[in-house]
């Protein structure tokens, strides 16, 4: 009892000071978690270069679709199905037909993803403008789909391609819901998520994706934005390009020419 300070008020004061100090330290510790994570560009350079694919750090891919050139033949959708063995009724790559009447109504259809071409369509009213919009995975930089994967089966490669590891995927379908562009599906044969890979097995061999290979009108351009003389970089630098749903801040790397926003 002799250790007890005679003045109880002093002890209380000291304790309060200690408490405030501890609280400040705790608050500071909490702010550590708010330090921003490095951006993807920084993260790319943190990853060690892979010996087996020595030039993978030299590439960053982008896709440009010119909707003013697309003729809606559906060759891309067919080639994608053949190349990637996409099951019936599912699409990694499809073409949508837009028809806007003079009354302002918009009619959108995509029979079988456009893979069999488009039939003559009878929409009520006069079609004032029409165009085709091919859709595929946008390979966002700020990917909503990989962020929600509980087992890290979906990821971005350093080349900017979003892939799904079918061996790790548990097929929960969370990423299918997270994708704002509806480009993912659950493969009914393997019960795992699947999506457009920009034909990763082709582009790593120096080939173009299958859909670009078969496009007859030059509406699809694929390339490497890290290469100075690439066509895709020239288009992005010199033309007016838009991305789909830019308000979602997903930073897609699939750019569109001739999009129409109302």
């Amino acid at each position, binding site marked *: 009892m002799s250790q007890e300070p005679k003045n109880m008020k002093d002890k209380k004061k000291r304790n309060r000071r200690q408490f405030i100090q501890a609280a400040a330290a705790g608050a500071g510790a909490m702010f550590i978690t708010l330090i921003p994570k490095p951006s993807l560009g920084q993260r790319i350079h943190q990853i060690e270069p892979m010996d087996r694919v020595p030039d993978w750090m030299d590439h960053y891919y982008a896709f440009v679709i010119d909707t003013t050139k697309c003729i809606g*033949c559906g060759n891309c959708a067919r080639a994608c199905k053949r*190349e990637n063995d996409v099951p019936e009724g599912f699409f990694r790559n499809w073409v949508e037909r837009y028809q806007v009447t003079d009354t302002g109504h918009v009619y959108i259809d995509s029979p079988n993803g456009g893979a069999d071409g488009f039939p003559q369509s009878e929409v009520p009213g006069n079609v004032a403008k*029409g165009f085709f919009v091919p859709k595929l995975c946008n390979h966002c930089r700020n990917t909503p789909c990989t962020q929600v994967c509980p087992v890290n089966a979906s990821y971005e490669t350093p080349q900017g391609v979003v892939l799904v590891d079918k061996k*790790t995927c548990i097929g929960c379908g969370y990423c299918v819901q997270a994708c704002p562009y509806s480009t993912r599906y659950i493969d009914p044969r393997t019960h795992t998520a699947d999506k457009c890979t920009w034909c990763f097995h*082709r582009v790593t061999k120096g080939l173009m994706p299958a859909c670009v290979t078969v496009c007859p009108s030059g509406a699809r351009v694929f390339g490497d934005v890290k290469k100075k003389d690439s066509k895709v970089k020239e288009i992005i630098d010199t033309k007016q390009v838009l991305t789909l749903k830019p308000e979602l801040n997903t930073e897609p790397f699939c750019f569109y020419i001739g999009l129409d926003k109302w």
Partner: protein
Amino acid sequence: MNKYSHLVRAFAVAGAAFLFLGIFQAVMAPDSFGQYGRFRGDHILEASSLPPLHSGTDACLECHEKEWEMEDAKHANVPCEDCHFVPGPHAVKGSKDAQADESGAEKEGLGKYTRVEKMPVDSSGASCRRCHMYLKSRPAGFPQIKNAETHIKDGWKKQMGPVDVTTSCSRCHNSHFPKAFTKVAI
């Protein structure tokens, strides 16, 4: 010491939890996980090692230059695989000796390749109409057929007989040179 026993206990529990989680992850995570990022590193190689199916026009040109002598032709920009596609391998690389054994391979001028499977041709009218049937959404300058009846010139109508939307375009048009009319209407 007694004074800090509650802290010791708390840190012991936290340490045990971290140790358990560390061991759990080491056992459960795939071997190459975290090699290049937060994913299974081997998958990048697996994904890039799949065989490509479409070879592209340049690959066709290695043997079929003659068929492609159409720089001025309207269809020069159409990739071969839009109409010609075989799901398996069409030709494989083979040495000259191996080719000599293959009957006719040398004669056909296949170069250093040996044909495995014949290339089918999609010459149905449907394949033409996928691009050239009139649709309101197609670009305005693109050549499109609005009406099969009025498309055919009067001089040809007698020879053609009845024409409708299912008539094969290749009855008159050569698919490679659509303006050349090298085929005679039957």
